[in-house]
């Protein structure tokens, strides 16, 4: 393998974005120059070398395939939650209601609501994977956006599951997504926001389950 072939292969597999990408390639070129026409394969396989760099710079994002277990886990958890809550036989009926306020478990609803977070997560990964190859000095923003995208769609799923209102769920999820995105740089605020959100949801659910009443 010639020097140029080695570099071409290396660049093809290097996922690190600019400006670091340019620095890595320049540094490798100087090393190849120092080798004085020795076979560059003494450096190992270019793909393997690029992988090592990707790992050093992108951390867990260096190979999106490694993160595929995460949406699978989310999906499994959600599926178990749906059927678990349904078959547990909790009655969500209020006084005077004649039909149980159980989730509307049609095949379309279940597939739609469980696949959205997974799709969102995969889209997020795809965005990260693509952007890491292009000039992007602050990849953290995109990572955060992908995570928020996943979280926002999860809220959509939860809202739809417990309220059955698709448009309302989309709206609240969007509000959540935009709101949190605006304060994305302040971790404690995000944590507080999420805790507050879950706290309010919990109160509502407790009220509906009649385990705790907020009405006098």
């Amino acid at each position, binding site marked *: 393998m010639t020097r140029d072939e080695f570099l071409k292969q290396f660049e093809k597999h290097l996922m690190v974005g600019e400006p670091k990408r340019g620095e890595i390639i320049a540094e490798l070129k*100087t*090393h190849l*120059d120092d080798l004085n026409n020795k076979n560059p394969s003494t*450096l*190992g396989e270019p793909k393997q070398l690029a992988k*090592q*760099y990707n790992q*050093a710079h992108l951390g867990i994002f260096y190979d999106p395939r490694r993160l595929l277990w995460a949406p699978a886990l989310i999906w499994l958890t959600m599926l178990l939650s749906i059927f678990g809550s349904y078959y547990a036989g909790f009655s969500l009926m209020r006084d005077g209601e004649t039909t149980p306020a159980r989730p509307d478990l049609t095949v379309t609803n279940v597939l739609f609501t469980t696949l959205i977070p997974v799709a969102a997560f995969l889209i997020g990964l795809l965005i990260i994977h693509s952007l890491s190859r292009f000039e992007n000095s602050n990849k953290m923003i995109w990572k955060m956006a992908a995570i928020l995208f996943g979280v926002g769609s999860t809220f959509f799923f939860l809202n739809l599951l417990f309220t059955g209102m698709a448009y309302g769920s989309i709206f609240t999820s969007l509000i959540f997504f935009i709101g949190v995105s605006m304060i994305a740089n302040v971790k404690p605020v995000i944590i507080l926001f999420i805790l507050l959100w879950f706290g309010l949801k919990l109160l509502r659910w407790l009220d509906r389950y009649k385990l705790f009443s907020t009405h006098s």
Partner: protein
Amino acid sequence: MNKEALKGHSELIILSALAKQPMHGYALSEYIKDEMAEAFKFGVGMLYPLLHKLEKEKLIHGEWQSWGGVSGQTGSASGGSRRVYSLTRKGQKTLASKKRDWARFTATINSFVNPSIA
């Protein structure tokens, strides 16, 4: 010496080498090779990403400098600009800590395999 025995101590070796003097990647690999009599030969596939990892952790600092191949120093055959790495203050502290750990480790192993010497 068995290379396996030195696995996991690559960071200590790199930090120790850079504590002696700032070096670029190729010079560093040659330096380590010479000093350790090829007992622990770094592949560049391991060395450079490790340097970048250490830089990310702010243990070392890399800077592009003109490099003419200092006389008597292992390093580049050619001149030109090279990315030269040096130890940061945090790197010095980490090195001191890793040295202590290494000393404890070798003392423990010594006392176990050579109880009469210990």
